[in-house]
């Protein structure tokens, strides 16, 4: 079965330290890869996506993600965490060739807590 794994339910990081939120996937072909963030009482917000090209993708709020095809991973990173980065982060994949069908396969989410 095709799936996305976020192995950590929660990640705790001190403010100013680098952060990594892990994501691996098991799908056929070469999917599109996404990260979304959900702040408290807010909807899902798009952070960044990988389509093709450079394996390091830069997104909103200083986040970036590195696509690693051999490890089928797409870890989310930020060099220096802010308290305001505390939120729920979701990794998702979309299978190529589905045109406008946006049937995403999602990870379970990782709660990121940044402590002052």
């Amino acid at each position, binding site marked *: 079965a095709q799936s996305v794994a976020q192995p950590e339910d929660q990640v705790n990081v001190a403010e100013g330290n680098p952060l990594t939120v892990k994501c691996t996937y098991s799908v056929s072909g070469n999917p599109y890869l996404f990260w979304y963030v959900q702040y408290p009482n807010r909807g*899902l917000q798009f952070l960044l996506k990988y389509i093709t090209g450079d394996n390091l993708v830069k997104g909103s709020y200083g986040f970036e993600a590195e696509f690693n095809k051999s490890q089928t991973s797409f870890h989310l990173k930020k060099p220096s965490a802010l308290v305001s980065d505390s939120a729920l982060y979701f990794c998702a994949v979309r299978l190529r060739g589905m045109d*406008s*069908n946006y049937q995403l396969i999602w990870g379970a989410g990782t709660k990121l807590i940044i402590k002052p």
Partner: protein
Amino acid sequence: EAGVTQFPSHSVIEKGQTVTLRCDPISGHDNLYWYRRVMGKEIKFLLHFVKESKQDESGMPNNRFLAERTGGTYSTLKVQPAELEDSGVYFCASSSQGVEAFFGQGTRLTVV
């Protein structure tokens, strides 16, 4: 530009009652999607509209769920009768021809 909006933001109903969720997509977006996240689990696809037509409803859990998109604008998702396991957050998203979809804030449904 207005984003995707969902109503209500929260709903608490008793088992056996009916609830209708509404989603207003971004104007001009032909594609509209419903997703659901049951507590602590991954977000699951429910169905996909292209304009007023159901393109894919393979994720709908059972026949207690009915989605409509009359006129190809806003969409409703009705749960009748609601069961305890229907509790969760229901997300709506819309997209045009691009890769990215835009999500609403979600409706938190609690069935007691």
